[in-house]
């Protein structure tokens, strides 16, 4: 079902229904499980009806994962060159009282 087939601004009907904007605003707490039962249900209902927000949610989560993968120390290329001046400064600092 495309978003356009849904009532304007709402992906589901009823007073608790959320717009895409509201869905995105609440996404952080939703992923933490920090929304109450009613709002969580409204988020789930929105997801069930809105492929755009499903895509948004998945790409939001993917961005977090990819940031982690691109920057975790094990994946980070360690500069081969040892900065000699800094090493000497650190060793000198250690000798200071």
């Amino acid at each position: 079902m495309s978003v356009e087939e849904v009532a304007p601004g709402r992906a589901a009907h009823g007073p608790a229904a959320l717009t895409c904007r509201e869905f995105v605003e609440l996404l952080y707490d939703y992923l933490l499980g920090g929304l109450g039962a009613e709002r969580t249900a409204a988020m789930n209902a929105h997801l069930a009806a809105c492929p755009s927000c499903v895509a948004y949610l998945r790409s939001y989560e993917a961005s977090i994962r990819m940031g982690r993968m691109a920057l975790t120390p094990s994946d980070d290329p360690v500069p081969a060159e040892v900065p000699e001046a800094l090493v000497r400064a650190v060793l000198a600092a250690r000798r200071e009282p």
Partner: protein
Amino acid sequence: MLEVSPRPVGDDPFVQRLRAGDGEAFEALVRRETPRLLAVARRLLRNDEDARDAVQDGFVSAFRSLDDFGGRCQVATWLHRITVNAALMKLRTRRRKPEDSIEDLLPSFLEDGHHARHPHQWRDTGEALLSSREDREFVRAAIDRLPDSYRTVLLLRDIEELDTAEVAQALGVSDNVVKVRLHRARQALRTLLAPRFEKGNA
């Protein structure tokens, strides 16, 4: 060159040598760890001089607290944490510069609340996604484009995995500010990554 043992135990002979003040062991450790620690500090501070200071401050503080090193983690992990803390001290004391707004990188919505531009599915978002060096570079460059106050929170929360209260305390802001900035930083990062990873785009 000396072997720096990765064994995570406090009675590790290498750690014992450090505690005993063995200069050769210190030099081996400093030589091995400095490039990686400098990369971590540069990422957080984006200023070479500050990053070097943070690495040096970190080592000095590590040398002083060697007796407190309980050996519950590897020496490298311990030094990493100390360096992040030293970088945080720098961030707190640094004069704030005006920074670019993040608004342009946040999703926009129509008046009725729908996405102004419908998000598309991304190509494979599994582990294979970042198999190429170019992709990893692209992601790093995207993180680097985030305005300072957002990039810092994203790095500390999502990469260094500090908790909200730790980040709030380190940056001198409220927990809620950290949450709002993290959510915005993730949204902005998503916007920057989308052109490369959306299906149908190369």
